[in-house]
C-alpha cells in the first residue's frame, strides 16, 4: 500500500499578519513557519494506516529549499521518503497541477482540509479531478476495511459515512486523529531518509494576488454594567439593529 501525503508550510497560528511592498506581499520576516496543522493530521493518519496494513508513506511539497526543515519534520514523524517540487507556490491550481504530475499510482492521497494561510481548500478536489479519481473533503475518520476505503466526512448540518473502492484523495479535518509528535529516533532517522527534488513540470498559472488588506479596526467597545445586562439586548435591537 502506497500513501501520498501533500504537505504545505504555513505561518505559525500565533502570527500577527502584516504586509509589505504597498500591501502586495505577506511580511515574512520574523515569522515562524510550521507544517500546516491539517496536513499534520493527514500525515499522522496516513502513517497509522500504512503501519497497520504494511505500507509506505511518501510526503510531497511544492516549495523552495527553505521548506526543507518542515519536510524533515514530516520524515521524522515516520514518512519514508519525501519529494519537493522546486517551485514557489503561488496558487492552488498551480500547486495542484504540479502535484498531479507525480501523484499517479498511489492507493490513497491525503491533504489537509485547507492550509491555514490562504485557506483555499481546493487541492483535494483539483487533484481528484486531475487524476480522475474520487475526492472526499473534510474527513474525520479514515479506515481501510477489506480493500475498501471508509470515511466519515463533515457535511452542511451533519456528517456522512462514505466508502470508495480504489484510489481516492481525501482532505483531513480535525477529529481525524491526534497529531504525532516525532521522537528522538524518528528525528535521527529523518536525517538520512531520501528527499528527492524535482523541477516543476507544468508551470501552470492560476489566479494572481494583487493586493492585501487588513480588516478595519473596531471603533472601541461600549461597556455595559453587568448588573444591567438586559440593556445589551435593547442596544442590539435598537442601536446595532442586529436583533
Amino acid at each position, binding site marked *: 500500500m502506497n500513501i501520498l501525503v501533500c504537505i504545505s508550510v504555513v505561518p505559525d497560528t500565533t502570527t500577527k499578519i502584516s504586509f509589505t511592498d504597498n500591501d502586495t506581499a505577506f511580511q515574512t520576516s520574523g515569522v515562524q513557519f510550521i507544517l500546516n496543522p491539517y496536513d499534520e493530521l493527514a500525515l499522522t493518519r496516513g502513517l497509522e494506516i500504512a503501519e497497520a496494513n504494511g505500507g509506505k508513506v511518501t510526503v510531497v511539497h511544492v516549495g523552495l529549499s527553505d521548506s526543507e526543515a518542515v519536510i524533515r519534520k514530516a520524515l521524522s514523524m515516520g514518512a519514508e521518503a519525501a519529494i519537493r517540487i522546486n517551485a514557489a507556490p503561488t496558487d492552488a491550481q498551480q500547486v495542484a497541477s504540479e502535484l498531479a504530475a507525480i501523484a499517479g499510482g498511489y492507493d490513497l492521497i491525503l491533504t489537509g482540509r485547507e492550509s*491555514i494561510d490562504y485557506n483555499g481548500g481546493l487541492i483535494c*478536489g483539483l487533484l481528484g479531478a486531475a487524476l480522475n479519481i*474520487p475526492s472526499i473533503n473534510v474527513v474525520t475518520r479514515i479506515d481501510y476495511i477489506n480493500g475498501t476505503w471508509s470515511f466519515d466526512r463533515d457535511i452542511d448540518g451533519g456528517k456522512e459515512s462514505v*466508502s470508495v473502492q480504489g484510489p481516492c484523495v481525501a482532505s483531513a479535518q480535525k477529529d481525524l486523529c491526534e497529531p504525532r509528535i516525532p521522537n528522538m529516533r524518528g528525528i535521527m532517522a529523518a536525517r538520512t531518509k531520501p528527499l528527492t527534488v524535482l523541477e516543476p513540470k507544468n508551470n501552470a498559472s492560476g489566479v494572481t494576488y494583487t493586493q492585501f488588506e487588513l480588516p478595519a479596526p473596531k471603533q472601541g467597545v461600549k461597556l455595559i454594567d*453587568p448588573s444591567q445586562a438586559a440593556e445589551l439586548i435593547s442596544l442590539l435591537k435598537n442601536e446595532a439593529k442586529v436583533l
Partner: protein
Amino acid sequence: MSLVVFIEFADGVYKKSSLEALSMARSLAESTQQKVVAVQLNGPCDSQILGQHGAHKVLHNGSDLGAFAADSWGKALAQMCQETQAEVVIISNTYSGKSLAPRVAHELKADMASQVVSMPETSNGFRVKRSVFSGKAFAWVQLTSPIKVLALTPNSFPIQTWNESASLETTQVSASSTIQVESVQKVSGKIPLTEAEIVVSGGRGMKGPEHWGMIETLANQLGAATACSKPVSDMGWRPHSEHVGQTGITIKPNLYIAVGISGAIQHLAGVSSSKVIVAINKDPEAPFFKAADYGIVGDAFEVLPQLIEASK
C-alpha cells in the same frame, strides 16, 4: 454568455446561501448585461422563487444524480455550465459547494477563487476579494481565464428580490460516482453554523459542558447557532464542528456573542468578520474587548440569565 449560479436544494428547501449567490449574480449582471442562469441538479424545482431572487433562467436537471458526490455532480454541473456558455460560475462556499467548485473549475479549465466575500470588481479585469489567513486579512485576486469559478462565503451578500419570473428549462444530465454514501446523520432543528446570522459562542469561562444549557437557551431565543472556542472542543465539552477560529470554522454572522472566551488571536481570526461582536468576560483585560463592539465585564453565570430573561 451567462452567469451561472449553482443552487443547493437540501432538506426540502433552497439554501439561503444559494439565494445570496443568486442575488449577487443578478446585481453583477445589471452592470455587465449578462443573463443569470440558476442551475439546480436535484430535487423538485420552483422557478418562481429562483426568478424572484435574480434568475433570468432556471436550468433544472431532470435526471437523478443520486446522493451528493463531488466527482459526479462536478461533471454534471460543468456540462450544464457549458450548455449555457457560462462565463462566471458562482457556488456557495459551503461544505458541498467547496468540494464541488474545484472539480467544476478543472472541467472548465477555469481560474477559481474560494472564500470570496464580496461582489467581483469588473471595471479593470476581473478581481475578487477573498478572506485569507483564516480571517486575519483579505486579498484581492485577479482571474484571467475565459471562465471563472467563485465560491462565495455565506452571509457575504444580502438576499434581494426582483419582481420578475424566470424561464424554466429541464435537461437530462447523468453522471455516476464510485463514492458510496453509506449513511447520513443530520443534526435536526439546528441552524448550520456557517450560515447563521446570529451565533452564541461559549468558552472555558462556561466551566463545563453541563452549563451549555444557558448558551443553548439564549441561542434558541435569538434564533442563533451555537459555537465554541478551541479549548472547549479540545476538552470534548462540545463537538469540533462547533469550533470557530483559525483551526476551526471561519464565520461571518451579523452578530457574534462570545461568552467566557478570552479572545486569543487564533479565535479572533475565525470571527473577526462578524458585523457586531459582543464579548462577555470576567477579566477586564481579556483581548476580546479590543475586538468587540459591546462588552460586559462580568461573570457569565450572572449575565446569561439576565440576557435570557430580556430576550424572551
